[in-house]
């Protein structure tokens, strides 16, 4: 019996292939974007784990102030019973950006070190020495072709990491010393105390994947938010399709109930049907999601590398958990979308007459309920905005505002339609147009909400990206004021280099720095001299009036915005510096794109406090015309590699390039969300078109040609899209504000000014009109070509 009933229920879809397609498409799209984003996140997380296991799986000793450890210290520790192995940690330039390098000592390192597994693949004599092999995962090896003959690809090394002998690493990274010492397991009991052998060293517990994960959390939360948005938009489509299918099968349900099928039985069969759909569409969606993830991953990897220094493999590996959770989300989505319909079937009264439900009647009760829900969502958003202070509350604010906006849409549109009615002429056709549009609102409102969300997200994200780009470009101009940046290949070269360039340029500006823990988190300390270049250009946000005079007198320090916000520090505050001394903060500057806290000291202070700073980098001021000549001279005289002489223009291009890729992901997700919304509009209009005949037939019979009706229907789709767009603009701008002033601050530590880009809106408007136009065109064409017999049937037969 169940089988017969199920077949009866399923036969509906054979007669309505388009509805079937809509349902599957909506569910598949919802699943696809969600599981695509999940795949990316899982991949990144796996990479973080890998990286942590290689880089920080062991307890280490490192310098308290961030200086390198000398060879003598290493030897002294070994002599005093410490089983330690030296590690050099640095960066080299590959063919596409920096690659992290790890120099190890195969003779002293622990056999349990994951780098040891990689070592097993090669002969130890090939590996040792400063021209030994460079081991990297195949994908990373491809980025190191500039070191080609020495590079060997070995599976199982963390992405973006190259492993080599410590001597190689010291040469390539220009580090004279040891970055840190790893403590081998099973240390002997009889050890001299660390404080007696090397008081400048501190013991650090293993770095965990959590550190990187915490840093990149914001980015992944961002992706997840987009995935969720698309998922919700997709569910709007499914909800519409399921609602219509249930509505059209109402007589079947009634008959089944009348011949003795219990409500429970009927509902469970419908649930079975839904699960079947969910698995089918979910499977499709997971496949699509894989394609989306594979397409986005290279950009995501580039973003994570550029913004957080996190290395993520550019290829996908998928776990069964991912597949299963994809199917689960499809089932959940189908259940959410069908819940109301199922409830109605459960309550169906078999004796009720075939009363055509007012599917398209504006229900003020529904609108009132939506408005109260919107009020609650606004309240939640405001509470999160006012009292919250982390990323989660930022996103709650964002989500609450979006939900509130979506729920307010039908009421707002209805108001706009009333206004339109009042403002336009009073012909009978005009009246009918407005009244009929208003009546169609409930049927279209889910699709329009989806469109509103997609448009608002688009405006919000593009305003943020545009503001960021504008601010960032201006900031780069200030920050990269020197015409040329050079890096000496080693310390011995520095003096000769300075002597060589000084007569050839207007100014030599040292950019010396060291890495150190600042107030408990990894950071950077730079030294600068007082020079007009800084006075004129440095992007200070707040500063004491005589900030540069102070630098000239070797007093005070500048800190970047991220450090200022993180530690709540402002000019005049005392800053505790690594190495146990303090200075006064004289200014705060913007430092976009840097995940680390940064301190700028007067150069003399830097050198005296941290004698082992890296002194290899300089900025040179000179007439831009002279740049090529200087480059040639430097190459000839010192044999400097091209990457050691970078002119301003290419540095700017490089930095901008990183940001373009960063936002490529947002842009792609944006477009995908917008396309899902377009599908939502299309399917809802087509769905409604089928229900519209009884409303259009009388108008046709009275004497309006089908072509005219078709034109009006088409125009109606445009009007609704236009009005939705008008409402989406303020929502999008609020969204942009939240992104720039709340989310960015929580996620990255910097706040951005907001700029408006009305030209982008025109494009978006054109795009949404085009979408709605296309979506409206097909039903309109169908109506224009509809055989009169179809329309007549409305009057002759019972519907």
């Amino acid at each position: 019996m169940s089988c017969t009933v199920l077949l009866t229920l399923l036969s509906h879809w054979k007669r309505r292939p388009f509805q079937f397609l809509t349902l599957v498409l909506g569910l598949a799209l919802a699943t696809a974007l969600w599981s695509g984003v999940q795949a990316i996140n899982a991949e990144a997380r796996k990479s973080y784990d890998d990286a942590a296991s290689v880089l920080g799986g062991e307890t280490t000793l490192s310098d308290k102030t961030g200086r390198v450890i000398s060879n003598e210290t290493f030897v002294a520790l070994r002599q005093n019973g410490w089983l330690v192995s030296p590690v050099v940690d640095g960066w080299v330039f590959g063919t596409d950006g920096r690659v992290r390098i790890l120099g190890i000592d195969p003779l002293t390192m622990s056999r349990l070190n994951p780098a040891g597994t990689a070592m097993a693949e090669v002969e130890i004599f090939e590996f040792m020495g400063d021209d030994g092999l460079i081991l990297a995962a195949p994908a990373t090896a491809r980025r190191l072709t500039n070191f080609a003959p020495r590079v060997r690809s070995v599976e199982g090394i963390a992405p973006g990491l190259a492993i080599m002998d410590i001597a190689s690493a010291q040469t390539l990274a220009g580090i004279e010393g040891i970055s840190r010492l790893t403590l081998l397991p099973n240390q002997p009991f009889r050890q001299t105390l660390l404080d007696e052998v090397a008081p400048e060293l501190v013991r650090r517990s293993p770095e965990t994947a959590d550190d990187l994960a915490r840093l990149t959390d914001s980015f992944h939360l961002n992706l997840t938010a987009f995935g969720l948005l698309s998922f919700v938009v997709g569910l709007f489509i499914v909800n519409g399709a399921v609602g219509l299918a249930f509505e059209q099968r109402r007589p079947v349900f009634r008959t089944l109930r009348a011949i003795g099928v219990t409500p429970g039985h009927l509902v469970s069969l419908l649930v079975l049907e839904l699960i079947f759909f969910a698995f089918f569409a979910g499977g499709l969606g997971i496949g699509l999601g894989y394609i989306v993830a594979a397409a986005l991953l290279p950009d995501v990897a580039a973003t994570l590398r550029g913004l957080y220094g996190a290395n993520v493999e550019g290829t996908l590996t998928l776990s069964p958990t991912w597949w299963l959770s994809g199917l689960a989300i499809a089932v959940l989505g189908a259940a959410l979308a069908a819940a109301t319909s199922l409830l109605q079937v459960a309550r169906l009264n078999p004796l009720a007459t075939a009363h055509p439900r007012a599917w398209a009647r504006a229900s003020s009760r529904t609108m009132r309920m939506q408005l109260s829900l919107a009020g609650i969502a606004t309240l939640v958003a405001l509470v999160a905005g006012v009292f919250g202070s982390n990323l989660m509350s930022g996103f709650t604010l964002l989500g609450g505002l979006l939900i509130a906006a979506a729920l307010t849409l039908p009421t707002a549109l209805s108001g706009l339609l009333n206004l339109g009615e009042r403002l336009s002429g009073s012909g009978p056709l005009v009246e009918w147009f407005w009244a009929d549009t208003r009546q169609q609102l409930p049927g279209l409102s889910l699709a329009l909400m989806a469109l509103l969300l997609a448009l608002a997200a688009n405006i919000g994200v593009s305003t943020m990206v545009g503001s960021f780009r504008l601010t960032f470009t201006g900031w780069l101009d200030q920050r990269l004021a020197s015409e040329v940046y050079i890096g000496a290949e080693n310390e011995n070269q520095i003096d000769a280099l300075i002597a060589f360039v000084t007569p050839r340029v207007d100014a030599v500006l040292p950019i010396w720095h060291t890495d150190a823990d600042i107030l408990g988190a990894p950071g950077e300390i730079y030294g600068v001299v007082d020079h007009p270049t800084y006075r004129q250009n440095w992007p200070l946000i707040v500063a004491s009036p005589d900030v540069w005079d102070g630098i000239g007198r070797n007093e005070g320090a500048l800190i970047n915005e991220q450090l200022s916000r993180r530690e709540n520090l402002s000019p005049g505050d005392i800053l505790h510096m690594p190495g146990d001394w303090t200075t006064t903060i004289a200014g705060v500057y913007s430092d976009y794109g840097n995940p680390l806290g940064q301190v700028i000291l007067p150069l003399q202070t830097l050198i005296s406090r941290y004698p082992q700073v890296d002194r290899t980098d300089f900025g040179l001021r000179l007439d831009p015309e002279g740049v090529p000549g200087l480059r040639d001279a430097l190459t000839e005289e010192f044999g400097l590699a091209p990457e050691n002489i970078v002119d301003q223009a290419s540095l700017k291009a490089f930095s901008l390039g990183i940001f373009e890729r960063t936002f490529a992901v947002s842009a792609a997700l944006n477009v995908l969300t917008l396309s899902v919304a377009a599908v939502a509009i299309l399917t809802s209009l087509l769905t409604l078109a089928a229900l519209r005949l009884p409303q259009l037939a009388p108008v046709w019979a009275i004497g309006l040609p089908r072509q005219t009706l078709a034109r009006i229907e088409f125009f109606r789709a445009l009007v609704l899209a236009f009005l939705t767009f008008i409402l989406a603009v303020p929502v999008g701008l609020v969204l942009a504000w939240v992104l720039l002033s709340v989310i960015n601050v929580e996620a990255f530590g910097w706040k951005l000014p907001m700029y408006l880009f009305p030209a982008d809106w025109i494009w978006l408007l054109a795009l949404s009109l085009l979408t709605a136009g296309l979506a409206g065109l097909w039903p309109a064409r169908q109506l224009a070509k509809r055989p009169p017999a179809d329309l007549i049937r409305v009057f002759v037969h019972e519907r």
Partner: protein
Amino acid sequence: MVLTVTSVEKRFGKVSILNGVSLTLAAGEAVALTGESGSGKSTLLHMIAGLEPMDAGEITINGKALENLRDAERATLRRENIGIIFQQFNLIPSLTVAQNLSFQARLTGRSVDIDALASSLGLTEHLAKYPEQLSGGQQQRVAIGRAVAASPKLILADEPTGNLDEATGDAVFDLLVTAAHDKGAALLIVTHSNRLASRADRRLHLRHGHFQ
């Protein structure tokens, strides 16, 4: 003559529904069209209204031959000269009763005294309501009002009382005949009730594709 139908034929596929039907209708005349279910009454009415094409013959309304007109011109002819009432679903669901009543008249640029019309139809207290809030009989009265308000030359009604109980149906029928008479419009009304048909000025019976 308001309407002349000359030797009209209609087939659906191989099935011939009408083979050479002719009739004329003068202004102010009310004619009842009867016939068994499936005999082609509705089809004929639809062809007269220009809603359905014919296979042979000629139909002229107010001197205008239908077959020379394009779709849009037929719609205009219908709008300006014909009031049409079906068995059901005559009204525009998104418009109020008042708006429905005046819709066709205003489309053709005629002004309507809604209050007078509504009181003559007994609809005064329903003017602000929407069609779905009315009973079947009330809906049909609105449909009659709309058809009459546009002052058409010809009113076509296809079983306007078919969905109503006898008492309500009789009242609606009488209302229609009176209203058409008052306006001087020709009325062609399809019914399968012999009792109602006998109240018309003349009656035509369709059988096997001919009038008998």
